């Protein structure tokens, strides 16, 4: 079972999520300006961490550098075999062409950090 609490500020939720009997926890690091703070506390999680690093609710494309920095920061808290990358939520909130570019950016970020096997 996977739990993805979309949309809402989640930086205060990490410890609560850590205690839940689920296999995966998804976190939206983008759609709230405060959400990125959650990254500093990912070490509390024992589940697979699915990190929403590209904003599925805004057309601005994240740069390889900012995605790389986020992933590096996450890897300091969570081992690579428990870290997945994803958009912050479903891609229906974006025009089709932008949604495709967001997925490409995600794949590039994973490859760049050596996370794709």
């Amino acid at each position, binding site marked *: 079972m996977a739990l993805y609490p979309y949309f809402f500020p989640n930086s205060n939720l990490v410890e609560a999520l850590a205690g839940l009997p689920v296999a995966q926890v998804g976190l939206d690091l983008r759609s709230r300006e*405060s959400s990125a703070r959650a990254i500093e506390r990912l070490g509390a999680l024992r589940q697979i961490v699915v990190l929403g690093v590209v904003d599925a609710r*805004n*057309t*601005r494309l994240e740069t390889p550098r900012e995605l790389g920095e986020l992933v590096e920061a996450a890897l300091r808290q969570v081992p690579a075999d428990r870290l997945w990358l994803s958009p912050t939520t479903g891609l*229906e*909130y974006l*025009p*089709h*062409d932008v949604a495709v570019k967001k997925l490409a950016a995600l794949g590039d970020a994973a490859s760049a950090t050596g996370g794709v096997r």
Partner: protein
Amino acid sequence: MSEILLTTSVGSFGKPDYLQKARNANARGKLSGTELRDVEGKATEEWIRRQEAIDLDILVDGEMYRGDMVAYFAELIDGFRIGGLVRSYGNRYYHKPVIASKVSRPKPMTVDWFRYAQALTDRPVKGMLTGPYTLLDWSYNEAYRTRRDAALALAEVVRQEAEDLDRAGARFIQIDEPAIHARPEELDIAIEAMGLVTQNLGAKTISHICYGDFAAIYPKVLDLPVDQLDLAMHNYEYRWLALFDKDPFTKELAIGVVDVHSHRLETVAEAAEGIRRGLRYVSAERLLPHPDCGLKTRTVEESLDKCRIVVEAAKVVRGELAAVAARA
């Protein structure tokens, strides 16, 4: 114009078939912009006459020239581009605007329409704008580092427009913020942005808020720097009024007493009961009955019927208040 329970509406009305056809023809390049504006002007005049005929007190131009309340402005503000299709719900898609670069207002956006509508009637016509927070929240932001930065930049654009409406003689300026409860933790941003818009206005200021968790922003929303809040109430069975028991409502209240999302026409008695509920919290001088929201999703006939119920209900309750005063 009555002095108590002034009746009004939120802004948009159903577009007549001939206007829908003209808009479609314009979109296909078969009708010029000038020709379309003539048709919009005709439809606007018809709505002014209809509002007068049913005896609404504070009128609107009916927004015959708008598609929706954000895209209309996005098409006129420099810095926006109209984005690709995005699903709103079901199989409905729309072109969501993108704030692509720093925003600015090349010229007034609504002032000519306000002047045109106001010149048609002796009754006051409201100037109608979309607020900076809603312009932000219903667009993508690629240009500003933070949402606050974007909201404040949009506030400067809306301020210029509102001050032009003020100078053009608008006695009421409505700055709609239906997105204000989308992210309750950003309410301070919406309040700060609205403060920039209304700081220099002589007109009475109004903000329409609808369809969200009003409890999540109350009572803090009373800090929104406007004179009047304009709220959808009937659709929520007036549940928000209970919030005023704990934290008294401090502004004028425009109260929705008919549901704009239902084809069913309320009775005068139902709408009058809604007004009486509002009177428990706000005096008749500060309570303005109206439909819950804009009526653009209804037909011309439905729009008219809903407004007529509001007006008749206000007359019933005014009569009751006069009778009580006479006995006192």
